[in-house]
C-alpha cells in the first residue's frame, strides 16, 4: 500500500514538473575567459540544436517542442541581459604546480612557489584549498598513488606550517587519471608527477 502511494506521489510530482515545463528558456554560448569558444547542444524529446559560435542562442518554449533554430545575438545584448549574474561571477580558482627533487623533497623553485600559494589564499580569503597528488603512467598504480599521496601530504604540512588552517585543506590523489600532458600507458613524464594546489 505504501509503495502504491509512493508511486502515485511520484507520478504527481513528475506531472507537476511537466506542467511547469512552459517556462521559456534562452540558452546562449559565450566565449571562455581566455577567448576560446566551445560548443553546446540543446535538446529535448522533440529534437536538438547545436551551437558552436559566440553569442548564438536558442529558445525553448517547452519540452515537447524542438528548440528554435539558433539566432545570432550581439555581445552587448547578451552582456546586458546577464549583467547581474556576470557581475557576481567569482574569479576562477588558481592552480599551482609543485615538483619534487626526490621522494617528498620539493624542488627549490617549487619551494619558493609556496609563498605565492600563501599569498593567493590571503588575497582570495580562501577557505577551500585542495592539494592533489598526480602521477605519470609509469610503474605500478599502487606505488605511484602511494608516493603522490605522501607528496600531497607533505605539501599540506608545509602549508599548515605557514599558517593555513588544516581544516581548510583537503588532500586527494587523482593518480594518473588527470595528467597535465596526456600520454599512453607506461610512459615516464616528469611534468605529470606533480602536486597541484587549487585555491578557491
Amino acid at each position, binding site marked *: 500500500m505504501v509503495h502504491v502511494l509512493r508511486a502515485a506521489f511520484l507520478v504527481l510530482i513528475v506531472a507537476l514538473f511537466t506542467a511547469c515545463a512552459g517556462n521559456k528558456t534562452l*540558452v546562449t554560448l*559565450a566565449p571562455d575567459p581566455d577567448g576560446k*569558444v566551445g560548443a553546446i547542444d540543446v535538446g529535448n524529446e522533440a529534437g536538438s540544436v547545436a551551437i558552436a559560435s559566440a553569442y548564438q542562442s536558442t529558445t525553448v518554449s517547452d519540452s515537447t517542442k524542438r528548440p528554435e533554430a539558433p539566432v545570432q545575438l550581439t555581445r552587448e545584448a547578451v552582456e546586458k541581459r546577464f549583467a547581474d549574474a556576470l557581475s557576481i561571477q567569482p574569479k576562477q580558482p588558481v592552480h599551482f604546480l609543485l615538483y619534487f627533487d626526490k621522494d617528498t623533497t620539493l624542488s627549490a623553485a617549487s619551494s619558493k612557489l609556496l609563498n605565492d600559494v600563501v599569498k593567493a589564499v590571503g588575497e582570495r580569503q580562501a577557505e577551500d584549498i585542495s592539494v592533489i597528488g598526480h602521477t605519470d603512467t609509469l610503474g605500478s598504480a599502487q606505488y605511484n598513488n602511494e608516493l603522490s599521496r605522501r607528496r600531497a601530504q607533505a605539501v599540506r604540512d608545509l602549508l599548515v606550517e605557514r599558517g593555513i588552517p588544516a581544516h581548510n585543506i583537503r588532500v586527494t590523489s587523482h593518480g594518473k587519471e588527470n595528467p597535465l600532458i596526456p600520454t599512453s600507458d607506461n610512459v615516464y613524464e616528469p611534468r605529470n608527477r606533480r602536486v597541484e594546489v587549487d585555491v578557491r
Partner: protein
Amino acid sequence: MRTPTLLLASTCLLTASACWAADHAGIVKTLSGEVSVIRGENSLKVVPNFRLQEGDQVQTGPGGKAGLILDDDTVISLGPNSRVALTGFAFHPAEKKLSLVARIYRGTISFLSGQIAKLAPHQVRIETPGATVGVRGTHVLIEVEGS
C-alpha cells in the same frame, strides 16, 4: 552491525581529508542580497565560502546574486530570482567517477565549465524545464522565465 560502522570509522581515520571531501561539491564564493541554500527540508543561511554538497539548491531573492565554485573549477553564477540545484556532482578522477548535473528552475545563470567537462565531456549537463544542455567545455548563459 558494529563491524561496518567500525570499518567506516577506521577508513575515515586513515583518509581523514578524503572523508571530509566525500560530500563536498563546492562553495558559494561571492554573494550579495538575499541568498539561501536549500538542503533537504532546511533553508540555510549563506556566508562567503559556504560549503556546498551534492543535492543542494541555491536560491536568490529579488535583489540577490551569488557565485559558486565547484571542486572541478566549474564556476556558476546566479542573478536575482534564480534557483539552481546541484543535482549530481562527482569529481573523483582516480576512481573514474566524473559527473555534473545542474538543474535550473528559474532565473539568469552563467555557467563556466571546469575539469569534468574536459575529462568526461558527455557527463556534464544542465537541465532546464524545457530542454537539456550538453556542455563541451565552455561558457553558457541561460535564462529561464520565472514561475
